[in-house]
């Protein structure tokens, strides 16, 4: 899932300072799970803003709403009528949700309430770690289910760098070296030969942004246009 972190309060407060009536829109999927932008965090941010501005004798009217997914047209459409009454929107979704909400619903300024950080996993409540860089060319089948593009800070495709120390990473000694892990995993699986093959240069042309994926069935029905 997408992992995000709530932006510092001072930054959000400064962004909404020019407005008298704002809507905070939460997202009920990834950012809710990682405790950054779900319904609870929308309520928390609204309370923080009201309290802080109240102490300065300022008034800010705040609407709160959370949709299932801001990255999904199906859930955003019904929101559009609701946003029209506000001077500005704070979206607590990941960067994709913020942009889609603005594109579909919002004529007024929109501000992100979170910093989107990575595609990762939920180890337990409050502890999330990165696993995937969406590189368009998955190597997991040959690297024992450990991603060298993500788990090696250098994204090396052909084995460890010279900085590996006692099986740990030169960049963050608290972390295990991804290539040491890949080696041990493949050894256990009897597939060490995978590591002998030289992997070619990564096809970065596939990663040119912004990416588009069109499902074959969609193509058959509608042609190639979105």
């Amino acid at each position, binding site marked *: 899932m997408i992992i995000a972190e709530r932006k510092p309060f001072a930054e959000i407060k400064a962004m909404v300072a020019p407005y008298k009536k704002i809507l905070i829109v939460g997202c009920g999927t990834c950012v809710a799970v990682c405790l950054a932008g779900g319904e609870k965090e929308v309520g928390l941010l609204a309370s923080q803003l009201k309290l802080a501005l109240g102490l300065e004798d300022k008034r800010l009217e705040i609407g709160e709403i959370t949709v299932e997914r801001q990255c999904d047209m199906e859930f955003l459409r019904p929101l559009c009528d609701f946003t029209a009454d506000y001077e500005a929107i704070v979206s607590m979704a990941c960067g994709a949700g913020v942009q889609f909400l603005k594109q579909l619903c919002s004529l007024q300024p929109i501000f992100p309430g979170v910093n989107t950080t990575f595609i990762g996993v939920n180890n337990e409540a409050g502890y999330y770690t990165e696993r995937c860089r969406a590189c368009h060319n998955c190597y997991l089948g040959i690297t024992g289910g450990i991603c060298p593009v993500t788990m090696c*800070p*250098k*994204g*090396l*495709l*052909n*084995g*460890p*760098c*010279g*900085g*590996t*120390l*006692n*099986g740990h990473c*030169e*960049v963050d*000694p608290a972390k295990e070296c991804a*290539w*040491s892990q*890949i*080696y*041990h995993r493949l*050894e256990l699986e009897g597939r*060490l030969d995978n*590591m*002998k093959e*030289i*992997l*070619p*240069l*990564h096809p*970065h042309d596939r990663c040119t942004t912004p990416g588009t994926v069109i499902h074959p069935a969609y193509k058959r029905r509608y042609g190639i246009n979105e």
Partner: protein
Amino acid sequence: MSKLRETLAAGGFPVVVELKPPKGTGVEDMLAPVTALAGRVTAFSVPDNEHAKMRLAAIAAARLVQEAGGEALVHLTCRDRNRLALESDLLGAAALGLENILLVSGDYVTLGDHPQAKPVYDADSVQLLQIARGLADGHDSAGLPLKGSPAFFLGAVVIPEADPLGPQLLKFEKKLAAGAQFFVTPAVFDLDKLRRFREQLPENPGKLLVSVKVLGADEIANASAGQWRKVYSLPPDLVSELAGKEPEAIMARGVETAARLVKQIKQENLADGVYLKAKGRPDLFTQILEAAGL
């Protein structure tokens, strides 16, 4: 043909001396060892933004070495360039008369002095070796033909004390297959570890240049505080003997140790040559060479 390649091919015992490109444009100190030792050492090695710390361009520095009468071994790191830049720099190096190239992944940017810079690593060191060999064969990494192709003597890094050693040995073999003709190790102090490592190497493992280093006071302080985090180990006796000593006393002992190691490596045929690191100081290099009888 480069002197380094010739010497290694002839079974000689080349000595490579590592220079320190300046942070700035004052190149006099960097070139001092070249002036002092050009007739005495085989090549002068020029790191490329070593330890991810920004310094004068290695290729420019290497050209200055050649103009000062020395032969250069220039490093090229994957950290700072995408494949276009790597390839054009390799061609540029060749056009400037640089043949000896050491291809490295490069220390990560957050360990250096520009920690917010974007790390590139478009190629890794194995792929970069393939790229360089491809250029020598007359084509770039996109398969397009070159007008005039370079002649390189290609080197790579290997870590004898890597732990675990298995992945390092697999990478070593990949580097060989990708075109590495010689290897350079990090500093070695424990020759038993070097012997054990050599026993693990495949047949025809290319030429091996073992690094011998003069430690500085900061490194001794670091090690005696239990903060040593390098891919080579230090002898505990040496560290405890030098802890708290004056920097010049540490250097003097370092020179003595380095000379002993060089002598032993040569006598026991533990490597095909040595790569000396001594803060880029000509006086220290001279003392090591004299004490080692080179």
